[in-house]
């Protein structure tokens, strides 16, 4: 049924991350973790998958001597997200 849906996006946590990032210019890792109620380890893995797919950019830097990870959606990510939503809507229309 979902064979046409992007497998990278069709998972709860990755979709949650992408939905957050589509609405903002960039967000800190801690912000995404708070909003998705996920664990740091699980979130790191999923963010890496999104990064490998080219859907997000990840910048690691230091802020007040603490490591800071900033995530930002890429153009490819925006296009993939839009396609995913269009596909979802078409499935809903079929029902």
């Amino acid at each position, binding site marked *: 049924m979902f064979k046409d849906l992007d497998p990278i996006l069709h998972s709860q946590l990755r979709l949650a991350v992408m939905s957050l990032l589509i*609405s903002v*210019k960039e*967000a800190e890792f801690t912000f995404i973790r708070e909003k998705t109620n996920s664990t740091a380890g699980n979130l790191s893995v999923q963010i890496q998958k999104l990064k490998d797919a080219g859907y997000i950019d990840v910048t690691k830097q230091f802020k007040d001597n603490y490591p800071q990870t900033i995530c930002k959606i890429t153009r490819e990510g925006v296009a993939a997200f839009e396609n995913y*939503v269009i596909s*979802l809507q078409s499935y*809903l229309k079929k029902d």
Partner: protein
Amino acid sequence: MDQSEKTLSEKESLDLIARMINKAKDACHDTGIAAIMWGAVIAVCSLVRLAELQFGFTMPFDIYWLTFVAVIPQIYFTIKEKKNRKVKAYGDEFYDYLWIGFGICIFLMIYTTSHMFNEWKPVAVEYKSLAGHSSSFRLYEYSSSLFLLLYGMPTFVTGVSMRFKPMLWGGLLCWVCCLVCLYTPVKTDLLLVALSSVSAWLIPGIIMEKDYRKAKRTLAEKHV
């Protein structure tokens, strides 16, 4: 539960997207502190100057210096807010530059109008010596209109782009008062400036602050 691999139905996916977008939106609320502060400062300055004219007393310092002093807490609030902010919205940079540009315009307007007053002074003196009475044209009577013209611009743009009606109406009121000030005496001008700053910044700022607190409270209750 492995949250990442959980299979979602179409409806669940769309619900999740909507929920996350709302969460991101709630995190981008403006605190409204700067609007409250500037609305109050400009209103106080105008009303104190009005009281000086009405009751014939003089403050030991020019009350409008308060606007320069207010820049210090403004810088402090901006740095603090930016430091605590974990998320950057798309419009953040636009609003930052819009209001910085407004600040520069106000500074230049103060410099320009005071330069014009100094240039005009000898002309007024000469007119008085030749005509035997002061000219009915008083340059300073037009300064309120010029400032209100500027106040309206970033306020209106912010109100429209944020879809925040109190600021939109506040900006429009500044422009209406700008026109009215051309035909009213200085004391009325000062009242209109106070009214404009309260409507354009103080009231919208209070509404923003309330919304910000509400969003924060809601998020805390949901533990997100």
